[in-house]
């Protein structure tokens, strides 16, 4: 079972990493979400996997899955949720302000990106050399 | 009295349902929960009243009960029917879109009708016309379309009309 579990996390991670490395914001958000799922499962598993144990103190049934990683994962899920929400809205903001959804806001002249002062753009390089 | 009721118990049926649901949720009938459930059953409708301004009146509780019984039975039958249809040869099926003219006017009643249609024999309600006068239904196997329409109107729409609209009409 552990191997199956590890394999699942591994695939999620690999897919998450690949998506995180994409050039558009939406896949990146999905990738990071996948990574978050994967790491939550990982963190959870660190208490070792247990099947069929009660989740509340139960003197009759006995046994209990490690509660600490669960608490940690809960916190992690919430935080990941907040972060994902923030990131996707930021992606929207980037789309609005940069005009496209490329993570680097490309498709506009790259020089312009580095230089908000558009007029001397053409000659700025030459100028720099003279002044340096 | 009715003023008081409108403020404190805007949707008595809803309150009752909530109370029952509370007890179901907690899977208990201990007095503490009955009390807490009652409090919540009163509180929540008041809190959410602005989202449900229209009052709902059930004119004929007995009809409602009977309607529910019919529907439950139909669900059982319909499902077995559909199971047979699905497992049978798919080429024998005669799918159809049926436009059902509606007599119901209350949105709640229409919604319940639409839901009922979905749950019962081989039909799914697909679209309600903008004027809310026609319901478009998809039937999985409607070899006699008019019969299906008639049955729906007879079996479901009429009781619903009685339940929800008899006093307002």
């Amino acid at each position, binding site marked *: *079972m*552990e191997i199956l*579990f*590890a*394999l*699942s*996390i*591994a*695939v*999620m*991670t690999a*897919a998450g*990493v*690949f*998506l*995180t490395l*994409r050039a*558009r914001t*939406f896949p990146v958000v*999905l990738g990071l979400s*996948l990574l978050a799922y*994967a790491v*939550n499962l*990982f963190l*959870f598993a660190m208490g070792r996997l*247990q099947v069929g144990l009660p989740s*509340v*103190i*139960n003197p009759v049934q006995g046994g209990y*899955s490690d*509660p600490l990683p*669960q*608490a940690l994962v*809960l*916190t992690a*899920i*919430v*935080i990941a949720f*907040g972060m*994902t929400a*923030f990131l*996707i*809205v*930021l992606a*929207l903001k980037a789309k609005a302000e940069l005009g496209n*959804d490329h993570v680097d806001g490309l498709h506009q002249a790259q020089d312009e990106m580095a230089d908000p002062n558009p007029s001397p753009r053409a000659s700025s390089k030459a100028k720099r050399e003279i002044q*340096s | 009295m009715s003023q008081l009721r409108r403020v404190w118990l805007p949707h008595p049926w809803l309150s009752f349902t909530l109370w029952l*649901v509370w007890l179901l949720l907690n899977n208990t009938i*201990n*007095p*503490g929960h009955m*009390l807490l459930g009652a409090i*919540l059953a009163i509180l929540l*409708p008041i809190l*959410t009243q*602005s*989202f*449900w301004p229209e009052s709902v009146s059930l004119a004929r509780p007995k009809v409602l009960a009977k309607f529910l019984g019919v529907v439950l039975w139909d669900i059982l039958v319909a499902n077995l029917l559909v199971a047979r249809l699905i497992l049978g040869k798919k080429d024998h099926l005669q799918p159809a879109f049926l436009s059902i003219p509606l007599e119901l006017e209350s*949105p709640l009643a*229409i919604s319940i009708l639409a839901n009922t249609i979905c749950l019962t024999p081989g039909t799914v309600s697909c679209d309600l016309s903008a004027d809310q006068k026609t319901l478009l239904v998809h039937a999985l196997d409607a070899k006699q379309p008019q019969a299906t329409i008639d049955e729906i109107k007879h079996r479901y729409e009429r009781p619903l009309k009685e339940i929800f609209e008899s006093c307002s009409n």
Partner: protein
Amino acid sequence: MNLLAFNLPIVALLPFLAAALAAYAAKFHRYAAAWVSAFATLVALGLLVPSIGQVFEGQTLIQSWTWLDQAGLQFSFRLDGLATLFALLILGIGLLVILYARWYLSANDSMGRFFAYLMMFMGSMLGIVLSENLIQLVVFWELTSITSFLLISYWQHRKDAREGARMALAITGAGGLALLAGVLLLGHIVGSYQLSDVLASGELIRNHPLYLPTLVLILLAVFTKSAQFPFHFWLPHAMAAPTPVSAYLHSATMVKAGIFLLARFFPALSGTDAWMWLVGGAGMATLLIGAYTALFKHDLKGLLAYSTISHLGLITLLFGFGSQFAVVAAIFHIINHATFKASLFMVAGIIDHETGTRDMRKLNGLIKYMPHTAALAIIASLAMAGVPLLNGFLSKEMFFTEAVSISQGSALAWIIPALVTLAGIFSVAYSLRFVHDVFFNGEPVDLPRTPHEPPRMMKIPVDLLVILCLAVGILPMFTVAPILDLAASASLQAPTPEYSLALWHGFNLPLMMSIVALGLGALLYFNRKGLIAAYERHQHIDAKHYFQSGLHGLIWAAEWVSTRFDKSSLQNAAAWTLFASLLLSAYGFMQFSSPLFGQRPLMAVDAVSMAAAAVLIFASLFTLIWHRHRLQSLMMIGVVGLITSLAFVKFSAPDLALTQLSVEVVTIVLLLLALYFLPQTTPKETGVSRLARDALLAIASGVGVFLFTMMVLSREFSTISDFFLANSVPGGGGTNVVNVILVDFRGFDTLGEIIVLALAGLGIFAMLQGLQLQPTQRFQLTKEAHPPILQTFSRLLLPLMLLVAVFIFLRGHNLPGGGFIAGLIASVALIVVYLANGIEWTQARLKIDMHLVIGLGLLIATATGLAAILVGYPFLTSAFTHIHWPIVGDFELASAIAFDLGVFLVVVGSSVLSLVQLGKLSQSSDTSPRHSEGAK
């Protein structure tokens, strides 16, 4: 209070104070800055005088204060013969330069700025020569680099001034850094940065394995500062400074700082072959190159600059000889060079000032127009040429003598005397040029101004210096001898050897060399035209050009490297981050010979789990494969979330499952809201190599995570969790241990977590304020905004879901649930209302400011924690009690519930705030023809 106990630091720091005063005073009167500076210089001299008396009595004065003892750093000053000599030169020539500058600067020049810089420079120089602590010396050393940068670039509108200053700063600054390193090594070897200790440890230093690096580093400082080959090229370009600056920096101060260092460290560092070859070699090369080049400069200051370089080479060469006598000669030449070179620069300045040019091709026959100045220039030039009866002759004779004696016994004995004679020839030639080409040689050509004598006061400093040249040259024993003796013995840290300052030593080889130099020099000068023409036919190494192109090369390389690495690209940054973590963790594991897996038995697999895992894996893969079809990809990630929560259920973590499920849906709604404004598909734009890199990283990450997971899961461990299990009920009052950990044992984490959530909500709100976005073009949309069936249904659903939320909330402490899940359920309930009825309709009915809900939630959670403080327990200490009421029965009242209520409110507030703000986005920028119809 004995002033003599702390006069040295005052002498060094007074100019800095004067700098501030001068800058301030200049606001009131144009010349006030000069007078303040002059006065301060005089005061400093005055302060020094009593101490000089003590030094002449044979004492070495040291005044120390603790600064940073652990680091060997003391605020520590030293006055010995060498320091006295240099301090007198700095102050004396400084005073003359101040007077000169008072008349030199034009009305356009800011007096305050000039004198402030000049005085800071003077203070820095004094600091160098008066320092006992070597780190302190480095401090002042670098200060001279900085202040000279300011002085050279004083005429900041001039490109050559800016570039010259930056070149000087780069070279001398680099030297300063080398000096710091060298001094650190020296301190490391000796165990102290105090000069007294270092000078007493010559043997130790020379025999230390770190001697050579130490020597090289210190010499780097010396050579850069004193413009020794191959670092000499900055000096001519520093001539862009106003002439008083050149007169000061390049006669007595800045460039002499390096020489001073040679004299200072002579007892500690000299006496090895390395010293001789490095110092002597650099000195000889500099001497020749400077002397040769000076002749061909048409600019007066250019000539003087190369002459300076040459003379600095001469002094360095003398130190390189390494004999005690050579040191005496070197120090003597330091004095002489300072006097004649300062006066020559001032003359050059006067000429520039009065004629408007420094080009010797234009300047001719000035003796007619400014005879007094001409006289001064001639005397000083002859001193520079080493003509008898002038001071330059004496030190040059000593130099020749030493050059002859040092090479005796060697097979190539003639080389050194020959080379120095050659330098002497050129020296004579350029000195002659300075005199003849400017003051004689026909009539001036196209001068911008009609030349005439400068203001009287402007010549006084030159007068004084020239008188000094004469006095020393004629009566050395009565003028320079005592101070020379004093300085030499301080430099040697030994009694001065026997030497004679007499004019006449008989007819010997050095005299022969002098005569040859004078004769051939004159010959050379009068045949200059052909030589100059020949010189100018050749391409010459233009150091400035090389420096500039080196600088551009540096900038280009820097840009190349930085942009290659820092591409301002998220993909690049993310790839590096992932790569680094993979690399380091793999390295970390492999450093130890731990087995990959442990011995813990693994669980059996069942078919359902296999199916679930298969779905999970496929869903993950298809999230990836379909990522260009965003909606499909989003749905796939929904499946991933669903199976993830199933896994939580399966492995006995219902709380997690509930949370994951709720979060999942809210996230999907959120992503759908956002997707409306984003393209529906992702373009194919990535190249194969990039894809391969990403795939490699992805696979490596997957493999890494697999191994990481298995490493841990296959091992046994012991955990602190038993404590939680044991104390959840007695200590936390709840049977749901996970929840008790969340609200009690580790309630502080949860507080942090809701703060994150609150911030996310607030941050999203802030981000979306005033944002304009157009929905992306896509399929035709229905006209009907809100399907009535859904609308109706949502009304029923809202109270029902809120009821479920209350249920989940209340049971959380003892059973799976809690404030967070309840909050999400309530949020989802509200979301359904929004989905069904639209923003406008819902907002009209839900008049709660979600900011306040968030704030209230945080306040409640915090206040719950603070309540414990009131009863004397730490923050977040929980309390619970069991209450029995009639009818109602037993129930538990726990402070954790209040905390959880805070959590609940924050979750609701943040989720709804974010989603609604996002939903509103389309309303603010809705330009499409369709309008929200709202609910009926």
